[in-house]
């Protein structure tokens, strides 16, 4: 006789204009089970859990909670049933303190004192460390996630939904999180764990439901699968690992950064502190680190959005460019792709061809005496679309109409096809599906093979370890000394990244207090 599942979905469908986001999805989660929901971006994972949490309602199908059919019209109803959720994009309020944020997640008023006591109790029980009086804007990403978890735990959930919880954590923070989750599961709380990081699922979960194109394509026991086999179920074809041929990094130094320091751009920014590194032609150099430790500031300093005080802090092929703007740097062969693709790398309301003009005009000769060569730009954009397999109608499509992965392929292609001597990219595969990510990785490898110097700034350690020749870690605006990838362990990198952020709880002046 089998146990009644905690949660069971039967033939749940949800249609949005133009897409069938969930197509007769069925799954069941047993009490105390850690159940993985696996799928590429756009496979329908988020829509599915939003229906379980009452943010959206299904068009058809039924949801059973402990054997009873239920309707979940709003999140409050979900919480009443015992469903807690930790969002991928945290639902926190920057200008408020931890207590207020947690109070907002509860459905009844509790005095600050009482809440403070309850929070401390939960934190002690699950080994979560947090100072309830701190303002959110001063906290690291790991600490922010702990708030979400505490908020969910205060309601004594019987099902906890975690939406891509580890994408922003250091390896040590991931360890801590897994401990908490296992502890919860051992107490009978079911966990629905959404991720596309396959090795985590192999490590943590007992069962996995794999979604593709809104449909369940497989259910499996991750402990009996490999990351590769699940990856193939997820994308529905053979996963082509990017091939890094035998490389000899013997080229000349193409990018040289010498004691680059910059004050913080605003209250929430990070100051860069004497950053030095060199990248040779043919080399891929990785910069790891937890978000908000100076990555954006470094990218902006390298691409020329923020000028340094002295020209020779940044040298491209021997020319000092520290005082030159982005256009001049591009002319010298330094191209870049920032993290934010829509709004920073590309303008959503412009066509792809216009977006191509924005960064490629001088290198590709789309501008003469102030006039634009539209035909040339159209041809170039069409070429990028073809070469990088961008799914779109053509160069006239608006950048904003492309999905994240496709727009990322376009902006990467736009820079790579200008044959830059130095390419700096930040988070090249953030939120990009596995197929496109493999494609982008291959393109970066090919670019390096042609003799360019490539700098990859990323929070995804796996990506960096797979892609790079040498690696540094950025923490609080300082760069660790570069190490060859083969000689450094994940544990070491994690410690360089700041270990478990915010471990000293009440000590507001701790070493990482300023990291947010």
């Amino acid at each position, binding site marked *: 006789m089998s146990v009644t599942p905690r949660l069971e979905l039967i033939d749940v469908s949800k249609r*949005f204009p133009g897409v069938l986001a969930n197509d007769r999805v069925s799954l069941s989660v047993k009490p105390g089970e850690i159940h993985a929901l696996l799928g590429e971006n756009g496979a329908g994972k*988020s*829509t599915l859990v*939003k229906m379980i949490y*009452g*943010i*959206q309602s299904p068009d058809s199908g039924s949801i059973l909670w402990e054997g009873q059919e239920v309707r979940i019209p*709003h*999140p*409050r109803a979900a*919480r009443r049933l015992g469903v807690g959720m930790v*969002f991928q994009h*945290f*639902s*926190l*309020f*920057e*200008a*408020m303190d931890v207590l*207020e944020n947690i*109070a*907002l*997640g509860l459905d009844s*008023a509790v005095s600050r004192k009482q809440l403070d006591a309850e929070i401390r109790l939960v934190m002690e029980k699950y080994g979560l460390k947090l100072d309830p009086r701190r303002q959110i804007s001063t906290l690291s990403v790991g600490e922010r996630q702990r708030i979400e978890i505490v908020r969910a735990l205060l309601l004594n959930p019987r099902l906890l939904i975690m939406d891509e919880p580890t994408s922003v954590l250091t390896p040590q923070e991931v360890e801590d999180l897994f401990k908490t989750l296992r502890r919860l599961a051992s107490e009978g709380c079911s966990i629905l764990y959404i991720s596309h990081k396959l090795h985590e699922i192999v490590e943590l979960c007992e069962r996995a439901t794999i979604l593709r194109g809104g449909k369940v394509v497989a259910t499996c026991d991750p402990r009996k699968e490999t990351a590769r086999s699940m990856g193939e179920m997820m994308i529905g074809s053979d996963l082509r690992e990017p091939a890094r041929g035998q490389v000899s990094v013997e080229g000349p130094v193409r990018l040289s950064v010498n004691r680059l320091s910059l004050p913080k751009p605003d*209250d929430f920014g990070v100051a860069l502190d004497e950053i030095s590194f060199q990248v040779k032609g043919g080399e891929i150099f990785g910069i790891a680190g937890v978000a908000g430790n100076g990555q954006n500031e470094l990218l902006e300093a390298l691409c020329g959005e923020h000028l340094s005080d002295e020209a020779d802090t940044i040298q491209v092929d021997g020319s000092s460019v520290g005082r030159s703007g982005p256009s001049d740097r591009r002319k010298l062969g330094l191209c870049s792709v920032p993290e934010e693709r829509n709004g920073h790398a590309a303008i959503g309301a412009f066509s792809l061809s216009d977006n191509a003009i924005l960064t490629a005009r001088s290198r590709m000769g789309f501008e003469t005496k102030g006039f634009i060569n539209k035909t040339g730009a159209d041809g170039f954009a069409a070429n990028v679309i073809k070469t990088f397999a961008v799914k779109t109608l053509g160069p006239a499509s608006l950048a904003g109409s492309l999905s994240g992965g496709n727009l990322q392929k376009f902006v990467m292609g736009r820079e790579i096809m200008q044959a830059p001597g130095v390419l700096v990219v930040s988070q090249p595969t953030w939120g990009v599906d596995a197929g496109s990510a493999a494609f982008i990785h291959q393109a970066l490898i090919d670019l390096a093979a042609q003799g360019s110097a490539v700098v990859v700034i990323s929070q995804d350690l796996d990506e960096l370890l797979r892609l790079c020749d040498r690696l540094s870690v950025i923490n609080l605006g300082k760069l660790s000394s570069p190490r060859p990838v083969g000689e450094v362990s994940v544990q070491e990198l994690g410690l360089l990244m700041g270990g478990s952020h915010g471990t000293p709880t009440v000590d507001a002046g701790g070493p990482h207090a300023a990291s947010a």
Partner: protein
Amino acid sequence: MTITFLIDALVTIIGITTPILLAASGELVVEKSGVINLGVEGMMLVGTIAGFAVTFETGNPWLGILVATLAGAAAATIFAVLVLSLGANQVATGLALTIFGIGLSSLIGSNYVGIAIDPLESPFPDVLATDSFWRVIFGHSPFVYFAIILVLAIGWFINKTRAGLVLRAIGENDLSAHSIGYPVIAIRYAAVAFGGAIAGIAGADFSMVISPLWAEQMTAGRGWIALALVVFAGWRAGRLLAGAYFFGVLMALELYAKASGHAIFPSQFWAAMPYLIAVIVLALISSRDGKDGKAPACLGKPFIPNG
């Protein structure tokens, strides 16, 4: 002699400060919810004519105030429908609401030009209200006491109650509030209507106490001062109270200059002062980008739920 003058001055300052204090208190609640309604001037004008006309026709000032409140709320609701339900631009719609208020109040008021009503008097016994000294505390219209209680109550509501916390949360991050399960649009509707109701009362203060003789556009731009005051106060109720009286002093200087005739500068200069100060203060505050007194993060942005 000097003490009489001082008391006169104080009574004047308190009287002319009250409508901007009221209107700004209402707008504070609106802006805390993440909506900016630039139609304060228009909603006040709707309140002036509603209060004046109803009081004149029925002889009952309390009914006048009630109708002014409802009229202000109704005007604000038009704004709310356009902005919250139909996604219109908040700045443009607010400006349109002001123009609408000017036009509507002038149209309805065309029959009342030159007509006067009895001003609403102090709610306290004459012994206190007309005493040469005690009138500084007891000699004001009910609006004055209401405004002070209201701003304190709003400060308490925003900072100490759960509902106030939810209001702030919605102004701070509407998407997060939505995903936790708060009805963002409904709460914003309530806040906007409340702001309109209070602006209506502020308008009634003009036509029923400050100048109980009907004239077009009698609010003379005070709605704009109220808007500036909210920014000036850094979205805090306590500073709003202090800031309102600061502007009150500036406005009183104009009256004094007009009456005495021997001020150093012409009265027009003093009349321009509050507006000039408002502009300077706003420029200073926005350039300083201070930590204390940050605008609600979602101020003026339309709410587009991402599913």
